[in-house]
């Protein structure tokens, strides 16, 4: 992104339009955590805090979403970052996958 944007030479309106277009074209991958009956709720919440650096409140919100709704979309990221997060979550043995948005 930093290689494309040239804010010094573009009018501010044009720059904003270009940024919006660029973001909408950026391929995104959703990192999803799925419910299972074996991972402890406190453990899942702890893992979310460690992997994403979230607050306890945010981690618990997503943990409860997983528990009650069967899954939670945790983040939307580039392919590389999404793969990284899925790998991190799977290191902790959580049921995590990524899907193209």
């Amino acid at each position, binding site marked *: 992104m930093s290689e494309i944007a040239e804010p010094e030479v573009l009018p501010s309106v044009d720059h904003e339009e270009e940024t919006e277009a660029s973001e909408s074209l950026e391929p995104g991958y959703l990192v999803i955590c799925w419910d*299972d*009956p*074996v*991972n*402890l709720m*406190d*453990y899942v919440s*702890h893992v979310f805090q*460690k992997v994403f650096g979230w607050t306890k409140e945010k981690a618990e919100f997503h943990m409860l979403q997983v528990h009650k709704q069967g899954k939670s979309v945790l983040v939307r990221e580039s392919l590389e970052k999404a*793969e990284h997060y*899925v*790998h991190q979550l*799977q*290191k*902790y*043995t959580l049921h995590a*996958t*990524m*899907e*193209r948005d």
Partner: protein
Amino acid sequence: MKLIEFDGKDYLFEFGERERQWFFEILGRYPFIPVSHHQLSKSPDEAESEANQKLLEEAMAEQRAENKKHVQAMLHDPGRFERSESITRFRLNSGESEWLLQILNDVRVGCWIQLGQPAETKKWKVDVSSEAGSFIWAMELCGYFQAVLLESLNA
């Protein structure tokens, strides 16, 4: 197992003798989850999914082999466990505690897979001396050790 002391760097835990034996037996089972258990994606039509899945499995296998070495090194490190009569004290730093959580959860989830991935994990009706009983025993013990670790890490 209980937390005795945290000095800002290391956690000092204490085991009774039976707990120590259980702890060693549980960790001796690592790794317990088949590498193919983890799926990168649920979309089978992704063009690169098969290649990416293979890469994931290779990475997981490599990491588990490394973890297994560390588990064995930890269990056989005489400086790690201080035994006196029926009590054993056991020291871990924060990073090791985080790592141990992963190891214990691998065994816990692995036991659940061996049990057929039942949806209900609270009401068991099995012979405790059976193979299934052994998996349930290990699963519950892992949960117990994890709960102590989590409580210590979040205290």
